């Protein structure tokens, strides 16, 4: 019994270690790369993305007509998001990674604006940094520009309504926004590549298992960092 248990633990440790070794420092790897999704899936996510982008464009247009200087602000916010994602952030586990900026951006600019900004930033990441891609833009925008921001927004508003302290609302919004982005990515990959045995569910679980390991500490790190940034900003 004891022997079997230790063998389990040994296996688990090997698994965890191997993932940390294979996984590079940067979690850019979390955007689905160019050409990875089959034609039909790539097209489907593009189609799913478009109505959200249209809604985002409408809401931005409305605010920009009222305050013409907001266009410059949004442009610079987009540039900031790109620069932020290009910097390595410290992680609670000691390794480093890149923030998504989803929580920070959503709290400052709202989820609909974030859809459009994320889409543009993803285009630039693909063309300038070779992270993500054009065919997979729909899928990546869905996870990072739609699911992430709306989860962050919902969590933030919900917790504030429940009377949670500001820091906790921000922390949960940023952490869950980050985490749900990657849960969505795992689901997208699982859907596109069902396992020969066990199908879609098994495939999703496999992707979730791998990404959860690296992503949970990173999500927590991003949450902490976002809280710290807001603390500094509110001192201004």
């Amino acid at each position: 019994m004891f022997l079997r248990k230790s063998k389990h633990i040994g296996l688990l440790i090997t698994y965890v270690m191997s993932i940390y070794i294979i996984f590079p420092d940067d979690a850019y790897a979390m955007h689905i790369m160019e050409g990875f999704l089959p034609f039909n899936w790539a097209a489907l996510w593009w189609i799913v993305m478009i109505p959200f982008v249209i809604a985002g464009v409408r809401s931005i247009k409305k605010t920009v007509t009222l305050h013409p200087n907001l266009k410059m602000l949004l442009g610079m916010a987009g540039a900031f998001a790109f620069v932020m994602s290009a910097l390595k952030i410290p992680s609670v586990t000691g390794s480093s990674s890149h923030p998504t900026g989803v929580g920070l951006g959503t709290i400052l600019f709202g989820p609909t604006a974030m859809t459009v900004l994320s889409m543009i930033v993803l285009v630039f990441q693909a063309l300038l940094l070779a992270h993500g891609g054009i065919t997979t833009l729909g899928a990546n925008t869905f996870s990072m520009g739609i699911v992430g921001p709306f989860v962050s927004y919902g969590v933030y508003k919900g917790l504030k309504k429940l009377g949670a302290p500001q820091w906790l609302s921000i922390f949960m919004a940023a952490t869950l926004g980050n985490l749900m982005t990657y849960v969505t990515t795992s689901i997208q990959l699982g859907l596109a590549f069902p396992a020969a045995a066990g199908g879609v569910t098994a495939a999703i679980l496999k992707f979730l298992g791998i990404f959860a390991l690296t992503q949970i500490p990173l999500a927590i790190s991003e949450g902490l960092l976002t809280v710290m940034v807001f603390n500094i900003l509110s001192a201004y």
Partner: protein
Amino acid sequence: MIAVDSYAYNNNLKSVHPAEKSLFVMLTMGVCLASSTMITPLIVLAVMAGGIILKAGIPTRVLIKLMTVPLAFLLISMLTIVFSVSTNSSGFWLAQTYNGFTIGIRYPDLMTAANLFLRSLGAVSCLYFLALTTPLTELITVLHKLKVPFIITELMVLIYRFIFVFMETATAIRRAQYSRSGYISVNSSFRSMSRLFSALLGKVFVKSQDLYNSMAARCYTGEIKVLTKKRPVSFKNYFIIAVIEIPLILLNLLWR
């Protein structure tokens, strides 16, 4: 500052009309994704690598380095697809069983992964062809012609410009932080990083107002109208695109 971007302004295909390059890349990428044979992606990879190195004159080492960027994602995802864990040991092509759990590879999964590997590399080479030969400002003009909502192309113009401005500021701040022993421990890393981000964010607010003022001084009317230098349209290029794409499409159709 960003290598890909510098090559976009400094290659032999720079003055080719951006619409021609975009059409070529998008068609090829579509053909590559829709292929069911492994030959198409290999041809695509060869065509694009040839275009990048021979036609555009980009050093081979640059392309090779770029090709390794998505490798981490590719490897992890492929391993995830290839390996499966099950309590049922049947159906495995290669497997190892521990305590009733079988970890191993099934043949169909392996084929999916192999296919995926080539297809992804083929598509990525298309992306690099576009990114390395076409300045982003010109791609934005193409999007504008394609009737992408104006607000999106306007934001793209601003974002592209200010990526470099903020990148420079971020680099300067990081240097100052390193000089004062920033990032030397986890604590100091969190402290340094959060201050870097909030300082940058502060600049976003100040600079955007400055930009608005300076644009207003140039009669900004609510729409960012700009003129882009015209590139010559070449029918020869459209002919070349047709010569490359038609056989590839035929290959895809016949190999089913």
